[in-house]
């Protein structure tokens, strides 16, 4: 059984007991425990079921590489699936549930899969569920998703109780990893005065060295780390962050850090995670290494663990993972585990060493301690189901015939170490295969991932650079720190010239280590039957047999094999399985490991929370929303909102008990009969000024603007270079050199950028300045037969008569005491004014207008009434009548295309043959035969023919369609093939789910063609 040892546990506080629950069972741990050490202290080795076969699985590792111990943590608004027990710190009240089993962890129906491992070989899903086609979606996939999958999905209706945020930091040197290498590198860099940011993913500084018994500068690693942290924390140029993971490295020195602020406190509703966006001059990855499992039959039985993890649990948490622990290894390092256990009075029946003649310092110590060493031996099979019971032993150089068996309840295995090269590789760092140490390590001969100056951006340090001995680790890391700070040159001579100074970095000592023996499967001639039980990837249930089968089926590329077998595709991204899988693939293909290569390392190094990706952007600040000065008034007065670009505009104003449609009808009739009040503030407004402003606008608009008289307005169209309509609006000439261009609500920023692009890149020598003043002015429309009376009642010295202020003119003055520019323009066909007033005074103006309009039936109206009224008049709307494929000529706006101008944007494109095709769909009005019937928006006109592909031939489509309360019938605008030539013709429109609709082609102006209503 696993249990708390009588002593030990450098990271726990035995005076502070903590309660937590696992699958509803209350357990006790100590402050400082991880969930994994807490579970092991309570003899809970079995922690989950495997993904495919539902095999019982136990804790394997002690860090972020853990593949099995994934938990559903918390509940309700603090629920989180797939949390790693090994990186979860316990707190009082923590609740954890194991995953991927039904009905219970102890008894799982799905485990029947495990009886027939042959039934689930590599590519099983691809091969089995291929037919019938429809069954995948409706039968297979739903079933597989239910039985497979890892953690539960959070409840859709429950909201995350916690908060998240971003933080942007700049630093000269960023150090990832707070072990002795990271601290040595940080200290070397920091002493030169540069800004240094050091991050450590766990809650403690020091990394592995204190557990492994290294000594630095003649002190224990613990003592040296403590002194180093003291020194660094006193330096004003150094920032130290614990519980912060280096997540990803990107181009140009950009990196992400994932800081976990409150996971260990268990307090809901607090700032939980922070995503650091870091710009670093240099990045040092002192990320250490991960121990590899050994591939033998039954290596997934709970109780089989990494040797280093067994050591960690004993030293860091005072937890013994078993009463009798066998050690299996191919290297000296695992002997540390055996010696440590022996010291802790745990029985170690034997060390199974694949090497024929282990005789380094550590094996000699083990012998001296009386531990039996089985040299040249391998594990033939690990026995047990929910817990290891015994280990069979065979010769490594054999096909697995068992020669002995040892009872035990834990097995500490070590297949060697793989440097954590992920971050080095994120930004393009290459790897080289070190055959002696059997590891991929950063390749310094190839180009490193480089920064803006062309010099290496990422520097791997210490064990992450492939150094396995304490002295070499420190020397390497110290140099990395000096290089990153620009004190010494890079090994290829790049960067600062080398300062010839004696080494002044830390010195280290450890027990010597004899060479390891690469062992990719145990025993060397693993039988086919044993391969079926020999796991490479615990989390995705990929076995040696799967990779070998993939190779036989022709998957030679490591990337293809990965996807076919799902090796390394689980949430741990193959941290344990990657190298072992590549080695098996290489062996199957008869290739060398470096020739097979690795899969691609991509960010994030470890999964990060979904919440932190959103950061602070949720709730009210999920997305920016632009508000007009009248926003709050509209909201309080029945405004029924619709989004228009980033703005909100009222679709209509609903009175109590009124339907949306009734409100729209009321608003239209009020405008047509009395007067309406419109918030048009969202319209874009851009000042264009300079001696060349007229020339510039003549290029931007299709019609002539330079001839516009001061004090007057002109409607204009803008096209892209390809001739398609892009925006429209009214241009007012303020003085000889100054124009004010109105754009659509969605177009203000885009058109301003469009203007600046042409001015800055093509016509840089034209004397034109632009300023976007959209937000400076609120624009308030006073529209309808009583409009003039309302303005007069508000009080103004301006002469509003038709003679003094005719249609398409504007004047400046004060209305109701507020400075205004008053345009006489109309988008409804009524007598209509738009007053531009300073935004800060807009609400005062609005209220004055409402007050003055009381006796005139003034009615605030929304965008739908606006749309209906403009459609009644046949006015086009950018985005309705246009969709990026429509030219002005399609809309019957030929009169807006100046023939006097040599050029304008879009002119040449509109000369293309396709644009001149007489069969283009063109704008017409459409009247349904039944006046009460409204054609659905977007409906297609069909001519009764079928195209070669069986689709009905379409000859047009609806672009705007409404019921007109004014005309008491439906009106529609549409684009129809040769439409204007077919006046009076009746055509058919599709109507999904209903009867097809017939409509007559008519003139697009339905109301007051002569303009009598507005010319008063």
């Amino acid at each position, binding site marked *: 059984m696993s249990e708390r040892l009588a002593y030990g546990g450098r990271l726990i506080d035995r005076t502070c007991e903590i309660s937590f629950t696992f699958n509803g069972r209350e357990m006790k741990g100590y402050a400082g425990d991880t969930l994994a050490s807490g579970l092991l202290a309570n003899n809970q080795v079995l922690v989950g079921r495997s993904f495919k076969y539902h095999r019982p699985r136990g804790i394997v590792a002690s860090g972020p590489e853990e593949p099995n111990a994934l938990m559903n943590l918390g509940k309700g608004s603090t629920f989180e699936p797939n949390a790693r027990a090994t990186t979860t710190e316990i707190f009082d009240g923590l609740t954890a549930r194991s995953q991927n089993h039904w009905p219970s962890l102890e008894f799982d129906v799905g485990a029947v899969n495990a009886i027939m491992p042959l039934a689930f070989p590599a590519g099983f899903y691809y091969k089995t569920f291929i037919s019938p086609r429809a069954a995948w979606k409706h039968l297979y996939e739903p079933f597989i998703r239910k039985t497979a999958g890892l953690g539960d999905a959070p409840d859709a209706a429950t909201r995350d109780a916690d908060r998240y945020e971003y933080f*942007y*930091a700049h630093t000269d040197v960023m150090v990832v990893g707070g072990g002795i290498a990271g601290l040595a590198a940080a200290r070397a860099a920091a002493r030169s005065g540069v800004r240094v940011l050091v991050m450590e993913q766990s809650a403690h500084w020091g990394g592995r060295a204190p557990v492994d018994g290294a000594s630095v500068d003649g002190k224990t690693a613990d003592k040296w780390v403590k002194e180093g942290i003291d020194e660094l924390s006193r330096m004003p140029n150094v920032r130290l962050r614990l519980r912060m993971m280096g997540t990803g490295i990107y181009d140009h020195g950009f990196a992400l850090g994932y800081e976990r602020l409150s996971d260990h406190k268990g307090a809901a509703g607090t*700032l939980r995670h922070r995503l650091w966006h870091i710009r670093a001059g240099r990045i040092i990855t002192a990320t250490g290494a991960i121990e590899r499992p050994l591939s033998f039959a039954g290596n997934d039985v709970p109780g089989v663990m990494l040797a280093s993890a067994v050591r960690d649990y004993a030293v860091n948490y005072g937890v013994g993972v078993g009463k009798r622990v066998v050690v299996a290894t191919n290297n000296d390092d695992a002997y540390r585990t055996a010696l440590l256990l022996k010291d802790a009075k745990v029985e170690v029946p034997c060390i199974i060493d694949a090497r024929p003649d282990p005789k380094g310092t550590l094996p000699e110590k083990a012998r001296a301690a009386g531990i039996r060493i089985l040299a040249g031996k391998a594990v033939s099979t690990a026995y047990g189901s929910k817990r290891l019971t015994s280990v069979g032993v065979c010769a490594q150089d054999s096909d697995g015939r068992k020669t002995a068996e040892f009872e035990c309840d834990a097995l500490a295995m070590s297949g060697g170490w793989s440097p954590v090269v992920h971050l080095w590789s994120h930004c393009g760092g290459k790897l080289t295969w070190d055959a002696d140490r059997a590891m991929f390590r950063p390749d310094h001969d190839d180009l490193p991932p480089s920064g803006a100056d062309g010099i290496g951006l990422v520097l791997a340090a210490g064990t992450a650079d492939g150094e396995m001995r304490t002295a070499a680790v420190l020397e390497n890391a110290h140099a990395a720190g000096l290089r990153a700070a620009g004190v010494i040159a890079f090994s290829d001579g790049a960067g600062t010239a080398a300062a010839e100074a004696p080494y002044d970095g830390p010195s280290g000592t450890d027990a010597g280590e004899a060479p390891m023996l690469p062992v990719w499967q145990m025993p060397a001639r693993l039988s086919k039957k044993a391969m079926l039980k020999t796991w490479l990837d615990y989390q995705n249930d990929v076995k040696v047999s799967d990779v070998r089968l993939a190779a036989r089926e022709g998957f030679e590329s490591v990337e293809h094999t990965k996807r076919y077998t799902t090796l390394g595709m689980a949430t741990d991204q193959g941290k344990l399985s990657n190298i072992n899988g590549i080695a098996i693939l290489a062996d199957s293909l008869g290739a060398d490991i470096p020739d097979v290569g690795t899969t691609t390392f991509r960010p994030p190094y470890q999964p990060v929370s979904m919440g932190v990706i959103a*950061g602070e952007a949720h709730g*009210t600040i999920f997305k920016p929303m632009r*508000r007009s000065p009248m926003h709050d008034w509209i909201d309080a007065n029945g405004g029924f909102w619709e989004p228009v670009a980033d703005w909100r505009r009222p679709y209509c104003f609903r009175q109590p008990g009124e339907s949306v449609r009734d409100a729209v009808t009321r608003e239209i009739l009020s405008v047509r009969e009395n007067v309406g009040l419109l918030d048009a503030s969202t319209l874009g407004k851009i000042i264009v000024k300079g001696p060349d402003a007229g020339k510039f606008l003549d290029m931007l608009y299709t019609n002539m603007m330079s001839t516009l008289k001061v004090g007057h307005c002109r409607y204009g169209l803008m096209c892209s270079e390809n001739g398609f309509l892009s925006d429209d609006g009214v241009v007012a000439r303020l003085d000889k050199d100054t124009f004010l261009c109105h754009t659509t609500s969605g177009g203000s920023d885009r058109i301003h950028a469009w203007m600046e692009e042409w001015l800055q890149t093509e016509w840089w020598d034209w004397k034109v*300045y632009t300023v976007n003043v959209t937000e400076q002015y609120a624009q308030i429309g006073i529209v309808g037969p009583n409009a003039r009376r309302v303005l007069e009642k508000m009080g103004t010295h301006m002469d509003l008569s038709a003679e003094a202020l005719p249609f398409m003119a504007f004047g400046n003055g004060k209305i109701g005491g507020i400075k205004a520019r008053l345009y006489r323009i109309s988008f409804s066909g009524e007598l209509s004014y738009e007053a531009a007033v300073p*935004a800060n005074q807009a609400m*005062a103006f609005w209220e004055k207008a409402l007050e003055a309009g009381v006796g005139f039936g003034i009615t605030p109206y929304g965008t739908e009434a606006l749309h209906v009224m403009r459609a009644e008049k046949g006015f086009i709307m950018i985005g309705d009548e246009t969709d990026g494929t429509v030219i002005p000529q399609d809309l019957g706006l030929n009169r807006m295309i100046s023939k006097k101008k040599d050029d304008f944007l879009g002119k040449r494109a509109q000369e293309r043959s396709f644009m001149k095709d007489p069969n283009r769909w063109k704008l017409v009005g459409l009247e349904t035969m039944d006046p009460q019937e409204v054609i659905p928006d977007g409906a297609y006109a069909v001519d009764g023919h079928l195209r070669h592909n069986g689709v009905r031939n379409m000859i047009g489509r609806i672009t705007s369609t409404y019921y007109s309360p004014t005309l008491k019938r439906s009106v529609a605008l549409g684009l129809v093939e040769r439409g204007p030539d077919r006046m009076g013709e009746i055509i058919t429109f599709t109507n999904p789910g209903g009867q097809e609709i017939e409509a007559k082609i008519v003139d697009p102006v339905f109301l007051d063609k002569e303009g009598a209503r507005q010319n008063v």
Partner: protein
Amino acid sequence: MSNAVSVLGGAGFSGIIRVVDAGVTGMITLRGDLACPKIAGAVKATVGVNLPQARNITQNGHNGAGWMSSDELLLTCPYEEACTKVEKLEEALKGEYFLVADVSDARARFTLTGAAVREVLAKGSPADLSPGAWPVGELRRTRLGQVAVAFWLRDDITAELVCFRSLGKFVWDWLNVTAGDDVPGYF
């Protein structure tokens, strides 16, 4: 001008810093050749400050001149004076190639006070806001979360921030969230 109201009507709140809607402020955009001595003279005569160096703002009480780009200045003054100052500039620069526009109503302005002011802004701005990189008097045009802003330090613990008026409420809400209760402790 008694009708003029700023976006938040002068509201304020205190979290890890104090955030206050600074009320209506006179702001004028001046585009032109900043090397032209007439521009410097007109600015000095109108708002009483010298032209700022690139990326800086020169200030004297409510009046100031901020460098927005190589051909654009942001002039600040009391709200009531913006109109006459625009006219004064138009007059002073007559015959030159320039553009002056009153943008006092186009923007919201907030005053942020507290030792953690850099920390709060760095939750939304990718600019380097460390004391060495962002000194007092430097104007940064940048973003805050998802929206465009400009800000400068009046003194070590006081920042002025301007954004578009329509986004004033959004920026206010954003500051309410990010200036709530957690100081990253980086600067």
